[in-house]
């Protein structure tokens, strides 16, 4: 390996900056999973009967399923009986009414991450629904949103206060039988976010949730449900970092989006969970099911994701294009370094007439990282006039990483128009030298080149999130160049 390549690798393999562990008293269930645990979760959350029944139905189905083996990732078997399925910060029991009531140590955690809630409230104009372990501890701007009829609350609250909406839409996009991890989530999910945008309302601010996994050995199973009524618009941000720890942590979230006639949902994610150490030990397993349903005519769902963390990422934010003229979009940046593995992509299922989908995937591999793009474009018989554009680019940093592409295309209607572009490039020594010869450090050069590579995706992110994403990428690529 040339010294330059070595240098680039050192840059890429920089240690996780957000490694720390917060000591908060937790109220946990014993490890393991059985019907009693599910009943306990449901009881702790004071859920109505329908919810418990749904969970048990999912659990029974899950027992008949096996873990999928098709992803291009390797990990040691997960012992589902050693996982703690319920834990809540103690301070939650009386329920914090404002930030003053929130555990100071928790607030400190956010501060370490550079995302102080109070500042966000004041400066960014972002309503934050913070998930700390499994219970939401702070919900802001609720009143202001309430005036517009917008509901933005912890999922557990929605179950109690808006049971009809939950009953109607929960599992309507990702059924409890959907896949191994989604079924598990359906059985044991503890919290998440619920968003309802009434007809004709344009949500005036970005709705944002910061997720954080904290208690040891606690699987995190969020459930998010976003419903955009006719002619409404919402932009939802999900961002996360996690503390340093040794055990592998399973994370199996489910996100369901429903867009009715002329509605638009923009869902943006920055994911920076602990990727494990140099050898890949201790990182988070991220097995997520995210799916949107463009149910109405002219509806639109956009997924934008920047994935830099986790030991293993298994994630395919998808769109079911049911309504005529509906649009599905997927913009993704996935960075794998050290021993990280990512198998990610999207599914665009064209059902309605004149439906369109746009897929832009940018994979970056460094160190021993393995990056796989897996995408399915399906044009059903009914989808006359459907169009898809897919662009799938991979960038390699160093010579011990890998990039893989598995595009699946199924077309059952001859009027479909498909475009697929793919490229693989390597950050060249010549590019870095060129930047250096203009006075930029090798570190800044790599960061600049990578950010340039990702530009098409970043520009889909809301402004402040784009800045954060770009910074996050730089931080992740930053290193020990002397």
């Amino acid at each position, binding site marked *: 390996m*040339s*010294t*330059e390549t070595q240098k680039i690798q050192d840059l890429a393999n920089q240690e996780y900056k957000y490694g720390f562990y917060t000591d908060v008293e937790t109220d946990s269930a014993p490890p393991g999973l059985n019907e009693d645990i599910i009943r306990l979760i449901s009881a702790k959350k004071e859920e109505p009967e329908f919810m418990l029944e749904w969970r048990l139905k999912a659990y029974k189905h899950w027992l008949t399923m096996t873990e999928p083996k098709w992803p291009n990732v390797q990990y040691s078997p997960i012992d589902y009986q050693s996982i703690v399925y319920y834990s809540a910060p103690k301070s939650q029991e009386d329920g914090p009414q404002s930030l003053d009531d929130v555990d100071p140590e928790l607030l400190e955690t956010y501060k370490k991450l550079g995302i102080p809630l109070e500042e966000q409230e004041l400066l960014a104009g972002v309503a934050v629904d913070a998930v700390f372990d499994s219970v939401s501890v702070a919900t802001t701007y609720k009143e202001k949103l309430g005036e517009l009829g917008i509901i933005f609350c912890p999922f557990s609250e929605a179950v109690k206060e808006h049971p009809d909406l939950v009953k109607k839409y929960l599992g309507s996009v990702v059924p409890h039988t959907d896949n191994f991890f989604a079924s598990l989530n359906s059985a044991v999910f503890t919290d998440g976010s619920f968003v309802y945008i009434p007809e004709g309302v344009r949500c005036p601010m970005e709705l944002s949730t910061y997720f954080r996994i904290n208690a040891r050995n606690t699987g995190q199973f969020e459930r998010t449900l976003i419903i955009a009524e006719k002619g409404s618009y919402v932009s939802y941000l999900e961002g996360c970092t996690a503390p340093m720890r040794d055990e592998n942590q399973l994370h199996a979230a489910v996100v369901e989006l429903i867009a009715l006639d002329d509605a638009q949902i923009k869902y943006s994610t920055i994911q920076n969970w602990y990727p494990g150490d140099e050898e890949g030990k201790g990182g988070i397993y991220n097995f997520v099911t995210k799916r949107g349903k463009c149910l109405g005519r002219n509806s639109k769902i956009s997924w934008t994701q920047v994935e830099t963390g986790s030991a293993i990422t298994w994630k395919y934010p998808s769109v079911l294009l049911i309504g005529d003229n509906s649009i599905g979009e997927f913009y993704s940046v996935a960075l794998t370094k050290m021993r990280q593995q990512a198998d990610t992509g999207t599914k665009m299922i064209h059902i309605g007439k004149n439906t369109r989908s746009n897929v832009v995937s940018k994979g970056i591999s460094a160190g021993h990282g393995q990056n796989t793009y897996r995408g399915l474009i399906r044009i059903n018989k009914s989808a006359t006039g459907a169009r898809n554009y897919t662009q799938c680019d991979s960038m390699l940093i160093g010579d011990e990483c890998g990039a893989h592409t598995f595009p699946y295309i199924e077309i059952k209607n001859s009027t479909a128009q498909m475009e697929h572009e793919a490229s693989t490039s390597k950050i*060249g*020594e*010549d*590019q870095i*030298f*060129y*930047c*250096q*010869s*203009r*006075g*930029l*450090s*090798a570190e*800044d050069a790599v960061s*600049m*080149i990578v*950010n*340039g*590579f*990702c*530009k*098409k995706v970043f520009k889909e992110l809301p402004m402040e999130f784009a800045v954060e994403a770009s910074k996050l990428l730089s931080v992740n690529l930053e290193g020990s160049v002397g």
Partner: protein
Amino acid sequence: MLEIKNLHVEVDGKEILRGIDLKVKAGEVHSIMGPNGSGKSTLAQVLAGRETFEVTAGEVSYEGKDLLEMAPEERARQGIFLAFQYPVEIPGVSNTYFLKAALNALRKERGEEEVDAMDFLALIKDKMKLLGMDETLISRPVNEGFSGGEKKRNEIFQMVVLEPKLAILDETDSGLDIDALKIAAEGVNSLRSPERSFIVVTHYQRMLNYIVPDAVHVLYEGRIVKSGGKELALELEEKGYSWLEDKTATAVNS
């Protein structure tokens, strides 16, 4: 300003430069000429700090400092600029952003305040005009989709904005039509001052009609075999490089 003593350089075990001696004083323009493969570009890149080349012997001092000890970005911050023979493309990074970052890296080194986007645009406006730079060119990604001539012009534009103390032009004239060549030369001439030096690497004499050198050196098989004034360039133009072969033989024998 720059003093090269007995510089030997290898790449992949093959010796490319075999003992270069060169002294460039402040305010001077030196031209390095020579046939393909003589080591001209190697010399240019070694001075800028390219690591693929291994310096096996010799020394280079720049403003009294050991240049070979300095990282490439350090050299740039100390005022060395290389106009590349083959400028590199950086997709997705706008020319403006790139150049502003470069300028600020240099300003930071000099203890000056960084310029913001507005000031920067004001600063480059005149220089763009000087080089006939199209406004769209500056907002496009660095060199991406640029024609050969546009890339070269962009190099000169960067040089004019960064105002180096020692500019090394590596075959900037190749790929330029005569009009573009004149404009590039104008860019160089606009920078000429008693404090600033240039090393102009070129195949052909025609560039030197516009950038008049104080000295011309002929590089052949890794050595400077002849040095002279600007008239040497004309002589080379007339005779070609073949007569140098006899010359080297004589040099070695004597």
